[in-house]
């Protein structure tokens, strides 16, 4: 197994939006899903998840609702709002372009004269 990768600054919001877009989740669920999607290779600092969730909700990108968890406990569930869906799409597009560019730069080999 490869060693875990640290989160790139500024990407947590995008990842949360993606995680939530696959179906309503509580905060712990977001963590689990991110780990599941990355095969446990992404190191998400657990504490920083919540400020990000609050920030996204304040921005109206996700909405929360109290419900019952799989182990029958009260938990706050988050779901994507239409504004969140739009944002996620925009972020996904710009990220793919960005990563292509980065990959292009990093993949360049010295030009042969």
């Amino acid at each position, binding site marked *: 197994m490869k060693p875990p990768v640290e989160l790139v600054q500024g990407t947590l919001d995008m990842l949360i939006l993606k995680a939530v877009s696959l179906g309503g989740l*509580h*905060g*712990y669920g977001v*963590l689990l899903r991110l780990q599941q999607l990355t095969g446990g290779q992404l190191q998400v600092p*657990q*504490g920083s998840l919540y*400020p990000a969730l609050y920030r996204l909700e*304040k921005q109206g990108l996700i909405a929360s609702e109290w419900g019952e968890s799989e*182990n029958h*406990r009260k938990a706050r569930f988050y779901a994507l709002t239409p504004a969140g869906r739009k944002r996620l799409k925009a972020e996904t597009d710009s990220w793919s372009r960005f990563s292509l560019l980065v990959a292009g730069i990093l993949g360049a080999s010295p030009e042969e004269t």
Partner: protein
Amino acid sequence: MSIFRRRKFESEMEAELRFHLESYRDDLVRSGMDPREAERQARLAFGTVEATKDQCRQAWGLERLDELRADLRYALRGLRRNPGFAAVAVLSLALGTGVNTAIFGLTDAVLLRPLAVRDPAGLVFIQNAGAEGANGGPPYPCFELLRDQASAFQGLAAFSSSNLEVQIDDRRELARGEYVSGNFYDLLGIRPLAGRALRAADDRTPEQGGPDGPVAVISHNYWQRRFGGSREAIGHSFQMGESTVTIVGIMPSGLMSLEPGRPVDIAVPMMLSDAASLRNRGAWWLEVVGRLKPGVRLERARAQADALFQGFMGGLEISPEVRRLYFDRIQLAPAGGGTDALRTRFAAPLAALMLLSGLVLLAACVTVANLMLARATARAREFAIRLAIGAGRGRLIRQALAETLVLMGAGAALGTLLAVQGEAALARYFAAGNNPIVLDLSLDRRLLFFALAIAVATGVACGLVPALRAVRIAPGAGMQLSSRTVSGSRESARTGRALVVLQVGLSMVLLAGAGLFLRSLRQLQSVDPGFARQGVLTMDVAPEHADFGSVAWMTVQRRILDTVGGLPGVRSASWSSMTPLNGRDRGEVLEIPGYSPPTEEARRVHLAYLSPEYLATLGTPLLKGRNFTARDRPGSPAAALVNESAARFYFGQGDAIGRKIVFAHKPGKPAYEIVGVVRDSRHQGPRGEPWRFVYLPVLQAIDPVSRLTLSVRTAGNPQALAVAVVKSVQAARSTLLVSNISTIEKQVELSLMKERLVSTLSTAFAAVALVLSCIGLYGMLAYAVARRTAEMGIRMALGATAGQTMRLILREALILAGSGILLGIVPVAGIARLAHALLFGVTWSDPFAFAGAILILLVFAALAAAVPARRAGRLDPMTALRCD
């Protein structure tokens, strides 16, 4: 965010985070970890819970609010630790705000606020005007002409105030009445509170009214006072003259007519007024108001009304001179604020009061600024330390802001409370006496806004600026501050001294101003009025309508004088058609054989009827000739008295006695022979020249005598005899209507109403400014003693006596006060010039006012200096030298 929502936020966040931690722990346990280790691992993986919470709050935008709350708490704690500072600052702000809000409220009610009528800007008064200015509206027939033919107006309405004698439930009463044309309320857009308003249909036939018969509306106040607010008042009827009038509605008290301040009890249609007056083409008793049609220019409407008026005047017999003076043309005046009487009377006093209250506000501002400056200086070291250990400047500024906010809030709240009290007192003051002025001085949104605006402006200007300056301090310099090395505070001490001088200067202005107003009130009161001010009871007595001018009424008059004159404590009693200052007046036009009047005006005199006892009762001396006697009665030769002014005016050095007077407008009446000359009585008050008066015996009056005033000279307090006198009057004839019970003294006092208002309030303002400047002076000197403790220690160690040390402080006080006094002298002169219309018998440089103000300021400056000076004198040199 409210406290409850905040609590919910916190508990939900707590639950959410706990759920996370416990779920992770459970998962770890499920994967085989020891529960305690799992708990530890879960916490480790999560990080600091409290930090996370803080970040969540921040993400939710709560930290600003939290900081504000903390700042406010901190400010409150800081103020609690300095109760003297807080109290003086809040009190200054409250006084500044309260005084200005109250005076603004009065000004607003009297001068500024339009009446609550529909579209006030479209209303105009239609007035006759001449060389002597505008004077009311045209006669009723001309009003009808304008109403029916002036197409520039949507409508025209007429009104006229009059006391109404009514009989409600078999009791004769005098009500403050208003005759209005039927369309009056409709045209103005005034809706009744209950029942219905008067309508055009109610005003069709003389003495009958309309289809519902004679009807009336009453004011809300009268409804409460006379009918106890009973629903049955509507439909109730009362007797007025020959008519039985039914009450059909209740109107808002302030909108019964268009005369601001004048209370009206009952309004009835024009058609219920005297039929002869309605027909009379030369009777000028109406006010006429019109509403312009939209889009019609004022000048066009005026020209149209004027053309109709000129046509009407063409058919009227009137001397060209009188016409030129009074009835030359039609003039339009804005009517949205009602008639001008109240505004004209109080415009100058209110302007003066606004100016003076502005000075009080300025004094309060200076006090607050000085306090804040001192506080900032005292906290310079604290701020420096906090900056040095990492506090953000922004946060310090916010804290200073919070402190100012707390002070402002408390000041505004207390000031508003003060303003409410002040408004109530002012309303009571205006409503006193038999001719009350009723003002709506309740606290409305405008006033609250005004109070808040003042408090905020003051707070920002005077509180924030010093606070911001304090925050700008450099930490390094600030930390080195101690009471001995006062770097940087030299400048603030200079500013502080300048502010104290300004305060004293403002006090000087207000004190000298108050002195001028008080002196001029005293001067007015000391003018010889030509009658005795003390010890005379007066009341109006009216017979029933049928008895006007009758022999029976004359007999009753005689009987009343006999019984009242016999009451213990009564010296004399008399009848007259008016008494000085009771607001009544009567003009006549004279012809004097052998005298040719230079102008029409020269023929006009004031006329009163007197019984022979009048001169003795009022204390007016007879200068020449004889007084009236019981023999001057119907059938005997007609006799008249004139006052000095009339005698001098018509006969110069020559003898008035024996000359004849003929009343030009009373052709059937005989010529009256002048039998005596009496001292001038100032019927209109102490200002101006006394009026020319002709007096006739009541029994030889030129028209039917109706209501008369009974004057009673008493040995003791005249008020105490009022009940007994009323009883004897009604014992003589039970149907007599007694009203307006008062004393001459009270009427003199009421006639000086605006002078007393200005002098009382300006004195109060001056007292406030004086106290504020004493506080400022005291603070400055106490600070000087504290700052110079070490220096004084050295002086004393070198041999200075306690007396010399004290003199040091007293000299400082004298310099500050003296500079302030000098500063104040020029503005006082300016204010006195502006207010010269309000002054009487004093000039702007009145030595008493100035010397008084200076003396008071010096005495109070010495008092303010006494405590710090004593403290300086008691210093122990050893302790003083050792002090930090």
